[in-house]
């Protein structure tokens, strides 16, 4: 992981339950399930840890870097280059298994409730798009 990351937006909220983690993206309506290894990586990533912060094991560094890229693709984290980490950097990261993130869309209609999505693209707010 060459870059530091931070949570992608204020719309991303996360909660941990018994080692597993649920991440909600309130903008997209998607939610994500992270296994315990994924949750451990998440904590390291959003704490602003850099590659130097997570220990000497090359496999851990590679895994973390790949996982961070996946989270970035999902819009959950963004690079935090040049910013001071806001959390407590992980000094040594260790976990069992492969971190995974599952993507779910079945609550999207329930979660997303923002008038900005209901405006006409050309005219803008407060004009609603034609039915």
């Amino acid at each position: 992981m060459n870059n530091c990351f931070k949570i992608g937006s204020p719309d991303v909220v996360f909660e941990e339950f018994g080692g597993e983690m649920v991440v909600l993206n309130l903008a997209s309506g998607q939610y994500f399930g992270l296994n315990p290894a994924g949750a451990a990586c998440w904590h390291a990533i959003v704490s602003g840890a850099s590659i130097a912060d997570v220990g000497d094991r090359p496999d851990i560094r590679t895994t973390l870097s790949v996982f961070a890229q996946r989270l970035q693709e999902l819009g959950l984290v963004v690079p935090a280059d040049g910013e001071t980490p806001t959390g407590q950097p992980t000094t040594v990261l260790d976990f069992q298994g492969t971190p995974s993130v599952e993507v779910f869309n079945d609550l999207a209609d329930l979660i997303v409730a923002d008038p900005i999505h209901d405006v006409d693209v050309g005219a803008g707010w407060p004009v609603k798009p034609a039915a």
Partner: protein
Amino acid sequence: MPVDSSARVLALAEDRLEERLAALFRHFDATWGAAPLQRSCRLADSRVEIRSGLQNYLDLCDLALLSADLPGAEGGRFLVSCSGSDACPELRWSSPFFREREIESALRDTRYRLHFHADLGFWQAYDRESGRGWQIMRDKSGFPAWDPGSPLRNLMHWHLSETGGSLIHAGTLLHAGRGALFAGGGGAGKSGTVIAGILQGLRTVGDDYVGVKPASLRAYPVFKTLKQDEQGVARLGLQGHRAIGAERNWQNKYQFSVDQIGHGVLADSIPIDVVLLPRVTGHASTRFEPVSAIEAFLALAPSGVSQIPGDRTVQARAAATLLRQVPSYCLWLGTKPSEIVAALCEFLENL
């Protein structure tokens, strides 16, 4: 300063929003003092005083809110006004869009909260430091269709969150000293189960939205509203009941209150011992099956965070804090309300 004193127009915008909200609240006390009507209502374990010149809105509050019998307790002050009338400024949004999430984010660390329903010109603003909330409408009927079921909802949540609480989208029942929260989306059987319990004498602190304090694992009443569609009314044997009027709400549901169907069943608070996720099955017998806290979280949190804007992370955190401390079960509902309630009572007695 964005206040035009002659026209009493106040333009809110993303730019310098905190400063503009401060300008709005400088008009609060004068408008409060001029408001001729008042109510005192219960909010969890405290109270709020409501003032307005709008009799129709206070009538609506009388139906949905709980009168407070806590004189002297210092609580919040909620004011309901029409934009541009009396001492209330005429409010306008002068940025190109009202971006709810961006506003929420911008105000997160400030003393203010703000919600704006653009289509209706419906504003709700809250000052965390003084406990003052202000609902400003385009005209006396300018509130959302869902508002009569839970009036002043955002203000209630914001005020409650200042004392470690949150509004949460759930129903409640109490039996044998043990309290259950019922979570789930529309059609899950949540309200039908709560009403069935009330009709058989179980106590409650409400349905749809209740106040919770996760640290103490207690739930509190905020609204006394109950809702049920025609099929539900028939299933529960409520046809012809004096609580069931001729009118239906925006969801085509009958709306009534807890005290209309159950005398003395509204408790001051109940413990939260379990979270139940009702599911309609069509099977004769009700049964309970443990589910993970994650599954319960996904049933409890999303609808709340979408329906109470302006402080969504607080609600998600409150739901998660609760669910880490109490067990969660799927409640596979039988078909007969009496059987469901009997099974629920047995379950709570043995919890």
